[in-house]
């Protein structure tokens, strides 16, 4: 059975782009429109990889990433962050949350700033799901 990749992004155009790349490379896509829905699907569908936007309604990618990486059962789940938010800001946000009493979290496995070319995303996926 093919490996499952969850795309968490509130922009339907970006989801469509990512889903197309995922399918063309032989993986099974799953979709969520915000962090809250993303976590529900992670727990239910157990994807092998998450492609995560940062700025979304309800729960941002900053929080969802932190939830994944501080959960004993999920922390090994690789995450590709695909966002317009700069990597530096993302890392600073995680540092700030750690300073406010949160657990330290590692950097995302891959960080891609939007927009990306299809082959860039495909290479990033393959780097995590050989």
């Amino acid at each position, binding site marked *: 059975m093919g490996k499952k990749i969850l795309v968490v992004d509130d922009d339907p155009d970006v989801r469509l782009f990512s889903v197309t790349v995922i399918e063309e490379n032989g993986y099974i896509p799953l979709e969520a429109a915000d962090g809250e829905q993303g976590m529900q699907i992670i727990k239910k569908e157990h994807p092998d990889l998450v492609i995560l936007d940062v*700025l979304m*309604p*309800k729960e941002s990618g900053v929080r969802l990433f932190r939830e994944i990486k501080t959960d004993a059962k999920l922390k090994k789940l690789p995450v590709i962050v695909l966002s317009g*938010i*700069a990597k530096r800001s993302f890392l600073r946000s995680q540092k*700030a949350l750690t300073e406010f009493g949160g657990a330290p979290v590692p950097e995302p496995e891959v960080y891609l700033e939007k927009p990306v070319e299809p082959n860039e995303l495909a290479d990033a996926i393959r780097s995590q799901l050989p």
Partner: protein
Amino acid sequence: MEIRKLLFVTKFDDLGFDALQSLLVLRKAALNHVVFVNVIEREKVGMHRGLGYQKSEEIKLRETANIRFIDWAETLFEQGMEVGVYIVVGNLITQVFESARKEAADLIVVGNARKRLIDHLYSGSDVIELLRRTSVPVLVYKPLPDKIEVLDRPFERVLLPFDGSPASRRAVDYLSRLGAVINQVDVIQVANPKDLKGDTSMAVQSLRKKVRQELDDICDRLSADGLKARAHVYIGDPMVEIEKAARECQSTMIALGSSSKTEWVERWLGSIPRAIAENSDLPTLIVPPPQRL
């Protein structure tokens, strides 16, 4: 209720990042989540003769808003705050309520630019309609290019008009939980000149004494919650006197409770909270009844 999540409704010209930064003082009152809302009016992208639906225009407007929000969000994320965003096409009021419901927001912040100055901003009626229908407290911000210090510290000195009604008591309750943010509350009551009965100064002063006693009780209650509070009595037209009091107290914000009058009753009797929200130069915090249509 704490202010944990704030809905920041902006068209960028009316409400900018400087206004949002001035509200970050609310972090002392538990604020940790800001949700940006930008509503693209349907007529800007809707059907035009010979053009149809302007999808490319919608994309342009969405991405323009997105670029601004990404910039703002980076600053907030780096401070450890949670940030969300809605960029939607539709009716302003409907979309604001929908976003507030989805996010369970504790406070809605909107701009109210004067139409006579810049006609492409929110119309006053949008803000009034929002205030009429909301069950979430609303902070109406005004552009104040000549009063930057007010925008810097909107919660510094709050003017609280009080008339003993359930609505004004609700505003007292709301402010009482913001002791970590507010420096001083000036509680005022505007007495009606018709109530000044009697032929002697003693008789007239008895009215002031009675009103003052009630206000002192409110101040004692606010003081018990850690707020510095002072009572003031004014006589005259409420709209005029509230503005006068705001000037004399050097207020940085006016806070009022609003009632659930029907639209018809309101049209006949008027609504002081909504008139202040629309006409005052100061940021105006409106605390509505909890349940409203």
